[in-house]
C-alpha cells in the first residue's frame, strides 16, 4: 500500500491553517489570511509544509478545503447583485422576517437589511397550495417580460423562491427555464433548501445566489493555481454538515460552505472520540474571539437543519439571518482569549462579546491595548508564563495586564487585581458553562455524562474549571489542537444530507408513499457522495417528528430498510422514547383518555456517507506512575479560593502513563493546560493530556 498524502486547508478569519498528512505524520503551519487573494495564503502555506515534508505538489493525493469566504461575504455584504423571483403577494418575506425585535428593550434597534433589496424582488403570479396542488397557474407572460429586465439590470445571479415549492417544485423549475437565456447562474429554493417555512427557505436561496459568482470564481482560480504548481489531485470542499462535496457541487450550492471551518473542529473532536472509543463527548473550542461547543454522540457531531449567520449585534439571537441547510450544530458565544471584560450598571463583571482581536490585542500584548481581556486575567492568575507565550513569540506584560484590570474592573468594585482577574475568569467560565448546559438540554442530553475534548489556543486554560462547573470528570486535550479544523478536514467522510418537508400523520401512515420519498432522498444524497468515492456508501434516515399541534420537532432515527404498515407502531414507540428523553415523558394518553394526540413526521432527512476505515485505537489510561513535579509555584485555585503550590511541568517531559497530581500546569509551545485542585493530569499514549477528576 502506498503512503497516503493528503492535505487540509482551512481559511479562517485571521489565519489560514494547513495540515499535511503523510502516512501517520502531520506537518502543519499557520499563515495570515489574505483577503484579496485567499488562494495565495493557501499556496504559501502549502509551499511551507510540502518543503518541510520533502514532497512536491504532484505527490498530493487529495486536497480538502474549507473556508469562511462564503460566511464573510454574507457578513460584510460583499456579494452579487441578485434578482429574486417570488410568489405574487409575498414580495417582502425576506424583509419582514419574523416581524419581531431581537432585543425587547432597545427602542433604537436596527434590523439587518435584506440580502436582496425590494427593487430587485420580482413578484410572479402563480400559486401552489399546502397540498402541493396548483391553485393558480404560473404567469408565463410575466416571466417572458422579465427576461430582458433581468438581462439588462446589471445582475450577477438569480434566485427563485415560491410558496410551497418544497412540496411541488414545478413552478420554480419552469421559471428557471424561462430565465435560462439570461446567462446568469440561477438558484431555486426547492433545490437549495427544500424545507417548509418561507422566510428561512427564501433567505437561503437568496444567500446561495448572493455568494455564488464570487465562490465559483474563487474555486476556479484555486484549482487553476494548484494545477500551475503541478498538483494533479482532486480538490474537495468541506461543507457545513461536516462532509465532503465536489468543487462542482460547491460552486452550485455555495451556501452549503458557510460555517465549514467550525465543522472541521467538530470532526477533529469526533475523530479523537473514535480513537479513544468515547461515545459521549462535548467538544470545546476556545480561540481568540469566540468559544464553540458541540455535542458528539457515537463519534458523530450533532447536526441541525438550520442556523443563523452574520449576527449584527453582539452575537444576539435573531440579529442575523437564517440559513436552512444541514449543519453541524454548535453553540457559539463571544468568549475568547481576546474578549474584553467590563462592569455593568449593577456592578457586575461582564465579559465579551467585544474582543480586543489581534490588534491591539489584550493589554498584556503591549501593542497599545488598554482594556482588560480574558488573556490578561489568565496571566494575572499565573495560568500563563509571560516569557513563554506562543513559544516566546509574544512577550507578555504582567504590569500592563494588572493596570488594565485595575482601571476597568478592580477599582470600580474595590477588588484587588488578582480578585478581579478571578472574577473575570469566573464570569467567562460561567457563561461558557451555562451555554454548554443549555445546549445539552436543548438536545435532550445531560452535559455531565460527557467527556470533554478541548482544543483551540485558550481552551486548555479554562477546560478544568469548566469541567468543575459542569460536573464533567474527564477532559482530553489532544496534540495539534492549534490547527484542529484543518486536521479535522482530513478525517471527514464524503457525505451529503438530503431533506424533504412532508407532513405525515402516523395514524394514516402510507408505507409505499413513505418508502418512495425516502428512496428519492437516498438517490439524491448518494449521487453527491458518489462524485467523491467508489467505496461503500452508508445511509442514515432520520424523521423529525412532533405531536400534531406542536411547533418543535425532535429527531427520531428510522431503520435503513423499506417500511411496512406495521412499522407505524415502531416509529411511534421510537418517537415516544425520544420525546421522553427530551422532555421528561411522552404525553399522549397520559391520563388514560383513549388514543390522545396524533404523532406526525414533518421533515425527513437522509444522510449518505462513505464508510471510513477506523483509526488506530488508543486506550485511555488513568496513569501507571505518578510523576514528581520538577517545579512548584503558587497559583490561585478557583475551587478553594486560595493560592496553592502548583506543579509546573512541560508537556514534552511527560511520558505516556505519567500522572501528575493537581493543581498543576502543563506548559507547551502554544498554550498551557491548567489542572485545578479537584483534578490530576495523565499523559496518554498518543500525546494527549487527560484531565481526570481525583478518585474518578
Amino acid at each position, binding site marked *: 500500500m502506498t503512503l497516503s498524502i493528503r492535505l487540509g486547508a482551512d481559511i479562517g478569519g485571521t489565519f489560514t491553517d494547513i495540515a499535511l498528512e503523510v502516512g501517520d505524520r502531520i506537518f502543519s503551519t499557520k499563515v495570515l489570511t489574505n483577503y484579496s487573494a485567499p488562494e495565495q495564503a493557501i499556496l504559501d502555506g502549502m509551499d511551507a509544509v510540502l518543503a518541510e515534508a520533502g514532497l512536491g505538489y504532484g505527490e498530493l493525493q487529495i486536497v480538502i478545503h474549507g473556508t469562511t469566504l462564503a460566511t464573510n461575504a454574507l457578513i460584510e455584504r460583499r456579494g452579487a447583485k441578485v434578482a429574486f423571483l417570488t410568489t405574487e*403577494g409575498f414580495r417582502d*418575506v425576506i424583509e419582514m422576517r419574523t416581524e419581531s425585535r431581537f432585543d425587547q428593550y432597545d427602542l433604537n434597534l436596527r434590523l439587518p437589511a435584506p440580502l436582496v433589496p425590494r427593487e430587485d424582488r420580482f413578484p410572479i403570479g402563480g400559486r401552489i397550495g*399546502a397540498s402541493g396542488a396548483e391553485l393558480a397557474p404560473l404567469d408565463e407572460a410575466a416571466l417572458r417580460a422579465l427576461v430582458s429586465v433581468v438581462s439588462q439590470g446589471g445582475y450577477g445571479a438569480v434566485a427563485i423562491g415560491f410558496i410551497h415549492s418544497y412540496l411541488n417544485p414545478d413552478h420554480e423549475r419552469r421559471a428557471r427555464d424561462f430565465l435560462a437565456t439570461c446567462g446568469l447562474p440561477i438558484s431555486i429554493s426547492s433545490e437549495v433548501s427544500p424545507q417548509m417555512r418561507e422566510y428561512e427557505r427564501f433567505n437561503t436561496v437568496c444567500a446561495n445566489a448572493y455568494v455564488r459568482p464570487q465562490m465559483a470564481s474563487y474555486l476556479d482560480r484555486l484549482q487553476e493555481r494548484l494545477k500551475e504548481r503541478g498538483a494533479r489531485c482532486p480538490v474537495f470542499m468541506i461543507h457545513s454538515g461536516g462532509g465532503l462535496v465536489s468543487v462542482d457541487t460547491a460552486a452550485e450550492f455555495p451556501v452549503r460552505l458557510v460555517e465549514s471551518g467550525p465543522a472541521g473542529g467538530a470532526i477533529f473532536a469526533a475523530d479523537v472520540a473514535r480513537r479513544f472509543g468515547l461515545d459521549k463527548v462535548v467538544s470545546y473550542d476556545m480561540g481568540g474571539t469566540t468559544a464553540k461547543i458541540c455535542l458528539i454522540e457515537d463519534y458523530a457531531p450533532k447536526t441541525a437543519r438550520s442556523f443563523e449567520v452574520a449576527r449584527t449585534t453582539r452575537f444576539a439571537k435573531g440579529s442575523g439571518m437564517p440559513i436552512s441547510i444541514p449543519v453541524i450544530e454548535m453553540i457559539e458565544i463571544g468568549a475568547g482569549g481576546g474578549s474584553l471584560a467590563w462592569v455593568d450598571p*449593577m456592578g457586575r463583571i461582564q465579559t465579551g462579546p467585544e474582543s480586543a482581536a489581534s490588534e491591539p490585542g489584550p493589554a498584556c500584548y503591549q501593542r497599545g491595548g488598554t482594556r482588560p481581556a480574558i488573556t490578561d486575567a489568565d496571566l494575572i492568575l499565573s495560568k500563563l508564563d509571560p516569557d513563554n507565550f506562543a513559544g516566546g513569540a509574544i512577550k507578555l506584560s504582567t504590569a500592563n495586564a494588572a493596570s488594565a484590570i485595575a482601571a476597568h474592573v478592580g477599582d470600580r468594585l474595590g477588588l484587588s487585581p488578582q480578585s478581579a482577574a478571578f472574577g473575570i475568569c469566573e464570569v467567562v467560565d460561567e457563561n461558557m458553562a451555562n451555554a454548554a448546559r443549555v445546549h445539552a438540554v436543548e438536545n435532550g442530553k445531560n452535559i455531565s455524562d460527557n467527556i470533554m475534548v478541548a482544543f483551540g489556543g485558550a481552551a486548555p486554560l479554562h477546560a478544568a474549571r469548566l469541567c468543575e462547573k459542569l460536573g464533567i470528570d474527564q477532559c482530553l486535550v489532544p496534540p495539534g489542537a492549534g490547527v484542529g479544523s484543518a486536521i479535522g478536514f482530513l478525517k471527514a467522510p464524503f457525505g451529503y444530507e438530503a431533506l424533504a418537508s412532508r407532513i405525515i400523520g402516523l395514524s394514516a401512515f402510507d408505507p409505499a408513499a413513505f418508502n418512495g420519498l425516502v428512496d428519492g432522498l437516498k438517490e439524491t444524497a448518494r449521487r453527491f457522495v458518489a462524485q467523491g468515492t467508489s467505496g461503500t456508501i452508508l445511509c442514515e434516515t432520520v424523521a423529525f417528528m412532533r405531536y400534531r399541534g406542536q*411547533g418543535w420537532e425532535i429527531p427520531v432515527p428510522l431503520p435503513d430498510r423499506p417500511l411496512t404498515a406495521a412499522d407505524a407502531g415502531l416509529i411511534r414507540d421510537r418517537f415516544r422514547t425520544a420525546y421522553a428523553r427530551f422532555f421528561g415523558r411522552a404525553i399522549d394518553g397520559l391520563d388514560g383518555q383513549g388514543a390522545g394526540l396524533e404523532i406526525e413526521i414533518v421533515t425527513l432527512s437522509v444522510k449518505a456517507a462513505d464508510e471510513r476505515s477506523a483509526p488506530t485505537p488508543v486506550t485511555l489510561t488513568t496513569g501507571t506512575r505518578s510523576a514528581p513535579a520538577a517545579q512548584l509555584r503558587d497559583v490561585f485555585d478557583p475551587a478553594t479560593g486560595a493560592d496553592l503550590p502548583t506543579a509546573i511541568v512541560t508537556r514534552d517531559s511527560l511520558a505516556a502513563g505519567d500522572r501528575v497530581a493537581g493543581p498543576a500546569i502543563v506548559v507547551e509551545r502554544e498554550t498551557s493546560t491548567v489542572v485545578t485542585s479537584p483534578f490530576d493530569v495523565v499523559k496518554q499514549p498518543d500525546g494527549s493530556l487527560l484531565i481526570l477528576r481525583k478518585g474518578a
Partner: protein
Amino acid sequence: MTDQTQEIRMQVMWNRLISVVEEQAMTLLRTAFSTSVREAGDLSAGVFDPQGRMLAQAVTGTPGHVNTMAEAVLHFIAEIGRQNMFPGDTYVTNDPWKGTGHLHDITMVSPSFKGDRLVGFFACTAHVVDVGGRGFGADGKSVYEEGIQIPIMKFAERGVVNADLIRILRANVREANQVVGDFYSLAACNDVGHQRLIAMMEEIGLPNLNQLGDFIFSRTRAATLERIAALPRGAWVNTMITDGYDQPVKLQATVETRDGTVNVDLTGTDGISRWGINVPIIYTKAYACYAMKCVVAPDIPNNWASLEPFTVSSPENILNAPFPAPVSLRHVFGHMVPDLVLGALAQALPGKILAEGAGALWNIHMSVKPTTPGGQRAEILMFNSGGMGARPEADGLSATAFPSGVMTMPIEATEHTGPVVIWRKELRPDSGGDGQYRGGLGQIIEIEPAKGHMMDFSAMFDRIGPAPRGRDGGQAGANGVAMLDDGTKLRPKGWQHLPEGRRLVLHLPGGGGYGDPENRSPEARADDLSKGYVTK
C-alpha cells in the same frame, strides 16, 4: 480575599439563576401546543424567594407578563398557605385578576424544596389554545361567558395530578388533548427549573437563597434608583383615542416622577366596556412598567427590586376593570398602554421618544368549517404586526411587533394548520407617516377559506379609526382597514363571517413619522421611491 471571593461567587450565582429561568422558559417553548406559545413566545418563567419576591425572570416575547407573574406568586402563597405546601406540589390558576389578565393564560407555581426546607418558587405562564366559553374574542358580556375559571388550587400534590381538575377541564374546552398537554408542559417546565436550582445550590453548598436574594435586590435597586433620580421632576399628561368595540375609547395617563418612584395614573380614561376588551389593572401595569423600563432602565434585569419603583394607580375604568368584567381581548388595550405612557414621557424627555405605531398586534382567530361533506374543521390563530413609529434618529421598523415581542408564523405553516389560503402578506406602501424619519410600513394581508370551506373569525384589530400619531412635526401613519374583497367594511372587533369564495382584506396601520418632513434627506426620499415604500 474571602469577602472579595464571596462577591464574585454571588455574581456567578446570579448569572446561573438567570440561566436556570431561561432553561425553564425554553422547555415550555419546545413542548407547548398553543401556537401563541410555540411560534410566538407568549410565555414567561421566573424564580422567586420563599416570600414570593421575584429573583429572576426569563426574557420572552411578552412584556405583558413582566410583573403580572411577579404579583401572582404572592396570591398563591396567601391562598394555598405554607402549611399545605409539599415537595412535588404544583399550583394553578387562570384568574385574570390574580394571574395575567385573561382566562387563556394559565399560571402555574411550584414550591422548590431542598430536603424539607422551602427555598423558593418557580412560576410560569402560557397562553393555551382554548378555555371553552365563547372562544377567544370580544363578545362576552362578563368573564363567566369567556370560559372555564380555575381558582387558585393544586394541579398536583406530592407529584400526584389532580384528576378531577383534568376531567372538568376536558369537559369544558375544545381541543382538550392540546390544552391538557399544555398543562403538563407548564408543570414540567417548573420541574426543570427546580432541578437546576437544587443542583446549583448543592454544587455551591448554599443552604438557602437569602444572601443571594439580598445581593440581587440591593444591586438592582441601587441601579434603578440612580436612573430615576436622573429624570426631570414633574407630571406629564397624555391622551389617546382608540377604536373600542362599537364606539371610540379615550385613554389617559399622567406620568409623575417622584423621590425614588415613577407613577402612572390612569384617571381620565373611559369607563368599563360592555365587551371583552377590558383590562385588569395587573396587565395594564405590566405594559406601563415595560414602557417606562424601555426608556429609563432598559439594561437592568427584571426582578422584585427593579420593578418596585414603577407604580400604577387608577380609578375603576377600562384599564382597571374589576371582576366580573369581560376581559378576553385585554391585550389590545394593554398593547396601547406603552404608546400612551411614552407620549407623556416624550414631554419630559423631548427628542428621545419614538412616534406612535400600530400598537396592538392584528391577531385573527379563524374558525373554519366545511361547506360540503369531506371538508375539514380547524381553529387557526395568526399574529400580524403593523409599523412601528419613527425614532428620533431612524425610520420606524416596518411590520414589526411593538410593544409585544411575539413573532409571526410562516404562512406555509398556517396553511398546513387548516384549510385557508393566504394570498398576500406583504408591506403596505404609503402607510408610514412622513417626517424627517419615516414611520414603519404596515402590511396587507388577504385570506380566503380553501375551496369547499367558509369561516367565522374573531377580529382583534385597532387603529382603524384614529391613526398612529407622529411626533415633533412628523405626520400620522395610515390607519388600518378591515374589509372583504368586495369592499364591505368590517368591524375592528368581534366574531364575523367570511363566506366561501370571498377574501378577507386587512390593511395594517403604519407608524407615525418623527420630525418635520421638510428635513427628510433627498437620498432617503429617492430610496423610498425606488423601493416602492412610497409610490408618490
